[in-house]
């Protein structure tokens, strides 16, 4: 008999499960490329990220082979420069961040009890953009056309004068493009975690991995725009000679370092926090006891997420910044060790409290403890300014960063790989081989990187392609090379075991072989779980006996396809109460075509093939519009019964809809990027006040532009009232010329200023041009809404497209007003 407390009774209607399976059936043959759901895209994503790990690892082996003996001539200096630049860039941008996004896309829905994340096509677009862009970027190494300025690409070395080839352009446009893909993934993750959790999975019961990914994604939202702004400014300088970083015309190379490291240091934690989240999932399972200090671990994740934004200058201790300023960053760098330490103690305490299964994931976790703690300790050492001056740009730093990144990220990732393979494959990986893999990787790593601490302290600089004999570095380098090849042997053995044992299967997976307590270990298929579980604890499989059977029998929420298609439950963000049922898309080609031509657009620009870039850009926009045209389904579908007496709508608009949330996150991204441009303005004024003009354009221009902007927002507000009344949105057609006119006035106001003449002109034109770009985007969205209205696809109820355009419009106007205040107001304010 069905317990009365469960949402749905037995027996379930005939054909319910079959309808669910039909709705979620994956495309076959070559149509597999059109898949959008997480169980397929997640696997593509993980495989591609691991491919980049191997490729970047091969580059590292080449470097180690070159450095094995003094005066080696295996590779030339020029090739070596490309090797270390590509190794760092690929590891950081094409492996470390994408792989954790990939794991999140793959695992989060099951872990949260959802059928999929809320924007499957966005995940697909993010993946294809990353895969196509990343592979094209990597291939430059075969043509000697790779960037060679180091993974952080400092100007003036990477300026046109010192790097005249297209290598730097590849980096700037390629990485900028791939960052957009990472941001798309972050939006998906944030909205997915906040809105698609199982009923009852309150913030206080959320899996730690979900907390870690939430912090990770929010950090991407605020950190990645800084590197996008930096790449934009450097590419503008290279392409059009706008002097943001050229000291002779009022620019400053340190502006790049500020922007880059405002992204680059949080990036370290962006990589580490998801790994820490994985560890917090694996340790309780391996110890068979709940995580000790669950709340403190969440506190630590959040605290690290914030504090890590106060560390960026610790990469710039040798640049001549005032000592007190350095001290602020030294103090922050030490402070961030405390929340990191809280997590380590919580994991140790959990192991101490439980009965530890000494399996391969546990070994990798223990290896992680050892290596990461050592990396953390050397991190505190280099946070001390005088010590940093001593070892700056030496192999000590190379050792430290690899202890942190490989220890803090790759070891947890390998633990996670062994841990979650039974979730996705018919067979777990071999324990016996796993132990060999662990010891080869662990010993190989330490043999490779521990000697580098000493090599660095005795003076060997980073990024040298060879060194003379007799400096005391010979034996240490040879040992490092032997270690690197041991490590590579471990990875190779893992790949062989994967080829031997890994057989992907959602329905017939190896199952919960570790006796884990979280939802991803429920029986699952392409549709994730048969029904969406009601959750009452952080470890539902441990604390709710019989949950797996109940879910599989369809006795929890939404036990079939409520709408006849793909759907998932949307719950409230704080306490996960069911709110509505979201219809999810079927497989489609638009994300793939859009990503392909977006990539082609950026690559054409790299080669300065502007007409081809324009054609690719138009096709990409057309694909995205085609995708967007089908985003907002009819609002007429009646509410559906999900069980437990709940009848929920399948269409909502406004702040309840997932589109609204995504647009808000997008505005946070845009706001961060704009803040970086305004920071750049203030920074350049601080270092070069002499290039700021004594006479400003008439205030009348600013007043006229502001009035036009506000009028356009007023027209959009009027359109909103019309939509509420009868669905009409014609005032948008009035708003468009008003916005465009404000942009024209903005440019006319700067007619006397040249962006090439000084840093002032360059940054003013950058701000004004960015505003113009937003005006163009807002116009496109408004025209799209008007077209949908004309086609009868927008009315009082079905209005998500309009809401998106409205939100974006008001944001763009607010951004434009902030720009006017800075460009016209600030110089007057300071006299």
């Amino acid at each position, binding site marked *: 008999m069905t317990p009365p407390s469960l949402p749905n009774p037995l027996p379930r209607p005939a054909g319910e499960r079959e309808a669910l399976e039909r709705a979620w059936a994956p495309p076959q043959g070559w149509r597999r490329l059109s898949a959008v759901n997480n169980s397929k895209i997640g696997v593509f994503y993980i495989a591609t990220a691991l491919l980049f790990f191997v490729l970047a690892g091969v580059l590292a082996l080449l470097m180690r082979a070159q450095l094995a003996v003094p005066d080696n001539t295996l590779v030339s200096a020029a090739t070596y420069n490309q090797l270390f630049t590509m190794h760092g860039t690929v590891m950081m941008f094409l492996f470390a961040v994408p792989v954790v996004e990939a794991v999140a896309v793959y695992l989060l829905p099951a872990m949260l009890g959802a059928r999929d994340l809320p924007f499957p096509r966005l995940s697909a677009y993010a993946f294809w953009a990353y895969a196509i862009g990343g592979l094209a970027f990597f291939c430059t190494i075969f043509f000697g056309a790779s960037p060679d300025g180091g993974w952080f690409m400092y100007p003036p070395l990477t300026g046109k004068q010192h790097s005249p080839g297209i290598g730097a352009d590849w980096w700037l446009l390629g990485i900028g493009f791939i960052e957009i893909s990472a941001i798309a993934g972050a939006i998906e993750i944030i909205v997915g975690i*906040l*809105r698609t959790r199982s009923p009852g999975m*309150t*913030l*206080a019961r959320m899996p730690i991995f979900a907390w870690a990914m939430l912090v990770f994604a929010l950090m991407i939202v605020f950190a990645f725009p800084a590197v996008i702004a930096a790449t934009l400014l450097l590419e503008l300088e290279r392409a059009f000679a706008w002097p943001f970083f050229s000291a002779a015309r009022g620019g400053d190379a340190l502006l790049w370092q500020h922007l880059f490291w405002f992204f680059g240091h949080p990036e370290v934690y962006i990589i580490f926090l998801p790994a820490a989240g994985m560890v917090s999932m694996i340790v309780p399972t391996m110890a068979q006891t709940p995580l000790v200090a669950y*709340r*403190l671990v*969440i*506190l630590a994740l*959040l*605290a690290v997420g*914030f*504090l890590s*934004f*106060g560390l960026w*200058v610790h990469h710039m201790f040798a640049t001549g*910044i*005032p*000592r*007190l*300023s350095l*001290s*602020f*960053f*030294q*103090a*922050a760098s*030490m*402070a961030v060790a*405390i*929340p990191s330490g809280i997590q380590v103690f919580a994991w140790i305490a959990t192991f101490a409290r439980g009965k530890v299964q000494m399996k391969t994931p546990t070994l990798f976790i223990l290896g992680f403890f050892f290596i990461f703690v050592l990396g953390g300790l050397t991190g505190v050492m280099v946070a001390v300014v005088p010590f940093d001056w001593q070892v700056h740009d030496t192999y000590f730093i190379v050792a430290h960063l690899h202890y942190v990144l490989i220890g803090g990220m790759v070891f947890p990732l390998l633990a996670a790989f062994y841990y979650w393979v039974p979730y996705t494959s018919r067979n777990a990986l071999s324990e016996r081989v796993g132990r060999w893999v662990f010891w080869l990787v662990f010993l190989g790593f330490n043999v490779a990187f521990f000697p580098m601490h000493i090599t660095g302290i005795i003076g060997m600089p980073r990024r040298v392609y060879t060194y003379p004999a007799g400096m005391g570095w010979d034996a240490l380098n040879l040992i490092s090379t032997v270690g690197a090849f041991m490590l590579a042997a471990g990875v190779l053995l893992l790949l062989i075991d994967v080829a031997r044992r890994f057989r992907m299967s959602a329905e017939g997976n190896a199952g919960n072989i570790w006796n884990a307590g979280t939802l991803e270990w429920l029986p699952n298929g392409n549709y994730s779980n048969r029904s969406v579980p009601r959750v009452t604890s952080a470890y539902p499989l441990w604390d709710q006996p019989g949950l797996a059977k109940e879910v599989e029998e369809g006795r929890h929420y939404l036990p079939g396809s409520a709408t006849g298609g793909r759907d998932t439950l949307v*719950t*409230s*963000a*704080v*306490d996960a*109460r*069911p*709110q*509505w049922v979201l219809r999810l898309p079927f497989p489609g080609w638009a994300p793939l075509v859009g990503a392909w031509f977006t990539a082609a657009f950026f690559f054409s620009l790299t080669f300065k093939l502007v007409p081809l870039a324009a054609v690719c850009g138009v096709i990409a926009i057309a694909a995205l519009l085609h995708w967007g045209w089908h985003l907002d389904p009819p609002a007429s579908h009646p509410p559906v019964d999900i069980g437990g007496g*709940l009848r*929920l*709508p399948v269409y*909502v608009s406004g*702040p*309840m809809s997932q589109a609204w949330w995504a647009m808000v996150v997008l505005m946070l991204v845009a706001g961060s990027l704009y803040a970086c441009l305004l920071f750049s303005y203030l920074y350049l004024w*601080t*270092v070069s006040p002499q290039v700021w003009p004594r006479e400003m354009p008439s205030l009348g221009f600013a007043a006229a532009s502001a009035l036009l902007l506000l009028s356009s927002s007023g027209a959009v507000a009027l359109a909103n009232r019309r939509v509420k009344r009868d669905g009409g949105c014609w005032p948008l057609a009035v708003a468009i010329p008003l916005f465009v006119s404000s942009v024209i006035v903005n440019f006319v106001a700067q007619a006397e200023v040249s962006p090439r003449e000084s840093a002032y002109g360059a940054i003013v034109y950058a701000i004004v041009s960015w505003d113009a770009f937003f005006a163009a985007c807002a116009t496109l969205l408004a025209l799209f809404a008007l077209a949908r209205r004309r086609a009868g696809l927008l009315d009082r109820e079905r209005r998500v497209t309009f809401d998106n355009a409205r939100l974006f419009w008001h944001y763009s106007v607010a951004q434009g007003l902030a720009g006017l205040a800075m460009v016209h107001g600030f110089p007057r304010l300071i006299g």
Partner: protein
Amino acid sequence: MNPGSGPGFSFPATALRMSSGVIVWALHFALVYGYTALACARGFGASVPSVVGGATAAAALIALGLILANLGHEFTRWMSAALAAAALLAILWEGLSVFMVPACA
């Protein structure tokens, strides 16, 4: 159930409350770093100790107020107070530099 009255709408308020302490830390950090950089570049470095000290005292008091205002065991209250406590420690620790290091050396 009326989804329009769902508690999802309280999320922005909850998120802001939880992160209010660390937002104070971020504002304090931006102020002391920005002011020191500007003062040293423009030659009014003598004012740095008093400005940084004053800002640190003010930020610490606000963080303390946030801790006291959020005491409780309920998850979001607890997290708000704990994050404010972490922010308080970070503000004091970072502000301490002003007593030990000359401003514009």
